[in-house]
């Protein structure tokens, strides 16, 4: 793979996406307001849960806010990259414009995963980062190199798992054509990621760890921030993320063999 070429193409993707989005200024403003209101609503909901008891599943309110901050960052990444690109796959397949992607001398997964970008998602990421720094302060977290490395690894793994889940569902469009509902179901499950995993019953904890690995997406990175995480959990998250990423790649290449293109 020619890295220089891919960087050059990605730079063009960024440029064209920003230029397209900036054509609609009002939309960006509405997205910013939505991101702030959504965060305020989530914190309010979280504070209601903690009203009667100082702890939920062994987590204090201040600690649970870290999960909310990581969730907001990941949701921002979803809205910036995954949502605009991976929902476009459905359109590409229904309308047959995937033909143009497949006939370009560039990796098709790279193209359809990164071509578009929604700049208003950046605002959500920034709001999440701001909340995370606030949490680091109120929880008196000591910022050292090992902590920063582990946080980076676990958050990167969360992004990989999240991307793979989205990509996997979007790829099934090649057979089922309409899979929009499945994406909405996934989004609903991801809302669960705003709360500590220990606050759920044992069976739900198993479900959200094994079948839809929400636990790996927000809880483990948050535990790293609080110094509560064990090494085996971090290693497990790295393994899960790698398996998800490799499987999504293989699944895409397999699915392309069944692509029949839309009729003209």
């Amino acid at each position, binding site marked *: 793979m*020619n890295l220089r070429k891919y960087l050059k193409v990605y730079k063009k993707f960024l440029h064209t996406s920003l230029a397209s989005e900036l*054509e609609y200024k009002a939309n960006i403003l509405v997205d910013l307001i939505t991101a702030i209101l959504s965060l305020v609503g989530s914190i309010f909901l979280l504070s209601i849960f903690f009203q009667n008891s100082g702890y939920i599943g062994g987590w204090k309110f201040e600690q649970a806010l870290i999960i909310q901050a990581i969730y907001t960052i990941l949701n921002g990444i979803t809205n910036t990259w995954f949502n605009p690109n991976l929902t476009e796959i459905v359109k590409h397949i229904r309308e047959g*414009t995937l033909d143009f992607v497949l*006939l370009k001398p560039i990796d098709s997964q790279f193209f359809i995963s990164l071509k578009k970008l929604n700049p208003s998602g950046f605002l959500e990421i920034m709001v999440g980062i701001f909340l995370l720094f606030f949490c680091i302060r109120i929880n008196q977290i000591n910022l050292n190199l090992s902590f920063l490395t582990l946080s980076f690894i676990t958050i990167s793994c969360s992004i990989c798992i999240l991307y793979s889940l989205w990509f996997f569902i979007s790829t099934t469009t090649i057979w089922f054509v309409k899979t929009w509902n499945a994406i909405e179901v996934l989004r609903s499950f991801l809302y669960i990621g705003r709360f500590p995993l220990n606050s759920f019953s044992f069976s739900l904890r198993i479900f959200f760890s094994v079948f839809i690995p929400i636990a790996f997406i927000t809880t483990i990175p948050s535990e790293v921030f609080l110094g509560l995480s064990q090494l085996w959990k971090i290693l497990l998250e790295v393994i899960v993320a790698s398996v998800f990423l490799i499987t999504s790649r293989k699944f895409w290449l397999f699915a392309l063999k069944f692509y*029949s293109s839309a009729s003209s």
Partner: protein
Amino acid sequence: MVQNIIDVRNLSKSFDISSKEPGLKGTIKHFFRRETKSLKVIKNISFEIKEGEIVGFLGANGAGKTTILKMLCGLIYPSEGSILVSGYLPFRRKENFLKNITLIMGQKQQLIWDLPPIESFYLNASIYDLDKFEAKKRIKKLSEMLEIDEELFIPVRKLSLGQRMKSELLAALIHEPNILFLDEPTLGLDVNAQRNLRKFLQKYNKETNATICLTSHYMKDITSLCKRVICVHEGAISYDGKLDLLLKKLSPVKEILIVCRSEEDAIKLENSGFTVKNKIKNEITIKIENNSITSSLKSILNNFDIEDLFINEPPIDEVIGKVLIKKEYDI
């Protein structure tokens, strides 16, 4: 000797198609138990195309023309048989193969809707690994050939269909491919835009010696661009050869309207042994076979007092229409 750039041998393609009975009962049945059957849409076809050739694929809707083009450019896996395009197996979609080909579809677009076409051209240039200087040079050259200028800087959504199609062509040709697959490129365009597009394709073929495979329902596209046609009927090839031979075979006679000086002359002509289609006063329409047209006209002009004369070619659409419903032509 000109080499074959496309070589297709015993190619077949089957699709699994599900069918549904009408009404609510049929819908419920279809939801729970979908009945699918395998439909062979391309049936054991073979042909070669030489470098620099322009070949038209003719056939009714659903005959299999687009499926053939999509297999040639590597979008669809063939069920049986072999295809070699420029020495590559298309469905492997190797980088060097993709740099050699392009697909243009009249009803689908790749340009970024909210931005001017120039942005899509530079994006494509980076995908094909062209530097900025080279991209600029090619955009200038192609925009001159296509006669577009200001349109390059206007958002695609505000362009007319003709301007958009020219921009689509430029985006698809920026990497200077030597094989062009065109699926109804003039669809929906007005007559002037169609003519301009044809002029451009002729020029592009002449200047670059590119091979062009074209499907179109506009017969003017076929007659002005293609010397050779491949007729597809229900997934099989019904004719592969020169277009003029096919036309001669399908319309062996010409109709000639003769205006005589007097009605007596017209009556004399009517009784002179020619096949008469109709006669109104001093005007008479006769049918003459293509191979005897010169001698027949000479004899008419020598023996009758003629005021005027018109030779009518049968409408090309009518002639080609016969191809679409016939299975085989032995020419």
